[in-house]
C-alpha cells in the first residue's frame, strides 16, 4: 500500500504523463501538476518536465520519482479531461484516491471519433482549404480522393507500425501520385492545388503551435524538441512530394 506522499507523487506524475502524451503545451502540464500537488497539501513541490520525461520531488519529505514519457500522440480530449479532473480536485470535489482512479480510467478509454468520421473530416479539410486558397471547384473530386487516400494510408500505418515520419512520407507520396494520375487522366486541373490541399490534413499543427507556445513561455528544451518534431514531419511530407517531380 502506498503512503500518502507516494500517492501524491504518483497522481501528479500520472496526470503529467497523460497530458504530455496527448500533446499539451508545457505551461499547462506544469500548472496542472503543480495545482494537484499544492491541493494535496505539498507546500513546495519541485517539478521538472520535458517532452520525454518528468521528475518530481517533495523536498521536505525526501520523496522523489522519475516518469519517462516514451510515446507521444495527439488527443486533445484527454488534455481537457485531465485539466477538468485537476480543477475538481483543487475544488475538493474529488479525493486524492478518486483523482488517481479517474486519471487511470482516462488512460484506458476516452471517446474518439470513429475512423469514418475522421476520414470524412480529412476530406473536408482538404476540399475546403483548396477552395479557400483559390483552387478550382472542378478539382474538388480529385482533392477529396487525394486527401482521403493520404489520410487513410497515414492512419493505417500509424495504427499497425511504429514508424514515425515514415507514415507521413508514404502518405505524402500517395497524395502526390494520386494528384498526378488525376491530372494526367483529365480528372483534375491544377496539380499544385490538389497536392497542397491533400497534404493539409497531415500538417503538424499541434507540434508547431506547442513549439511556439513553449518557447515563449520559457520551456526552451521542450520548445526546441517540438520545433524539431514539426520540422521533421514537414521534411517527411516535402520529401514524399518531391519524389514525383522527377516524373513530371
Amino acid at each position, binding site marked *: 500500500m502506498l503512503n500518502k506522499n507516494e500517492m501524491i507523487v504518483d497522481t501528479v506524475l500520472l496526470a503529467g504523463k497523460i497530458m504530455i502524451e496527448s500533446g499539451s503545451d508545457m505551461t499547462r502540464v506544469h500548472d496542472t501538476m503543480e495545482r494537484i500537488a499544492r491541493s494535496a497539501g505539498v507546500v513546495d513541490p519541485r517539478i521538472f518536465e520535458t517532452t520525454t520525461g518528468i521528475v518530481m520531488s517533495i523536498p521536505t519529505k525526501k520523496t522523489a520519482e522519475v516518469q519517462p514519457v516514451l510515446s507521444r500522440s495527439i488527443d486533445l480530449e484527454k488534455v*481537457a479531461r485531465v485539466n477538468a479532473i485537476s480543477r475538481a480536485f483543487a475544488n475538493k470535489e474529488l479525493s486524492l484516491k478518486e483523482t488517481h482512479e479517474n486519471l487511470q480510467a482516462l488512460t484506458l478509454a476516452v471517446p474518439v471519433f470513429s475512423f469514418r468520421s475522421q476520414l470524412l*473530416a480529412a476530406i473536408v*479539410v482538404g476540399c475546403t*482549404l483548396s477552395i479557400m*486558397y483559390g483552387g478550382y471547384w472542378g478539382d474538388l473530386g480529385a482533392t477529396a480522393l487525394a486527401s482521403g487516400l493520404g489520410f487513410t494510408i497515414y492512419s493505417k500505418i500509424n495504427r499497425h507500425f511504429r514508424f514515425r515520419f515514415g507514415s507521413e512520407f508514404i502518405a505524402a507520396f500517395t497524395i502526390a501520385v494520386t494528384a498526378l494520375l488525376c491530372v494526367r487522366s483529365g480528372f483534375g486541373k491544377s496539380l499544385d492545388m490538389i497536392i497542397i490541399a491533400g497534404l493539409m*490534413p497531415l500538417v503538424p499543427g*499541434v507540434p508547431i503551435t506547442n513549439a511556439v507556445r513553449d518557447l515563449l513561455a520559457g520551456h526552451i528544451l521542450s520548445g526546441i524538441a517540438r520545433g524539431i518534431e514539426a520540422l521533421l514531419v514537414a521534411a517527411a511530407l516535402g520529401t514524399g512530394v*518531391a519524389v514525383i517531380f522527377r516524373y513530371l
Partner: protein
Amino acid sequence: MTTIISIALSYLATVAFGILINIPRKALHSCGLVGAFGWAIYLAIKAITFGVMLANVCSAFAIGIGAMMAAQRHRMPMILFNIPSLVPLVPGGQAYRAVQNFALGNNDLAIEYLIQVTMIAAAIAMGFLVAEIIAQAYFKFWTKQKR
C-alpha cells in the same frame, strides 16, 4: 460572394481539423467560430493592405484572443481552440513551391520561398505572442476581480 463562401468554408475546415486531433465535441462549434473569425480578419487585412505578413500577424492575434474567450467560456485549455484555427494560415503553398524548386534544382528560387515560409511562420508567432501577453494580463485582472 467568394469572401462569404471562403469564411463559411474556414468554419468547416477548422471543425474538421478539430475532429482529426480529437478535441471534445462540446468545443467544436466555438472552435469553428474562432477559425472563421481569424480567417475573416486575414482576408480583410489582405484586401486593405495587399500584404500577407500583416494579415498573418493580425489573424494570429485575432485567433489568440478568440481562443482565449472560448477557453474561458468552456473552461477548457486554450490550445484546443487555437491549433485548429491556425491551420488555414499555414504557409502550405509557399512550402510546396520551396520543395518543388529544390527538387527541380532551382535552389535560388527554393531558398526565396523558404524564406517566405519562415517569415510567415514568424509573423504568426508574433501575433500569438501579443495575444498571449494580453490574455495573461486579462486573466490576472479577471481573477483578481473575482476574489
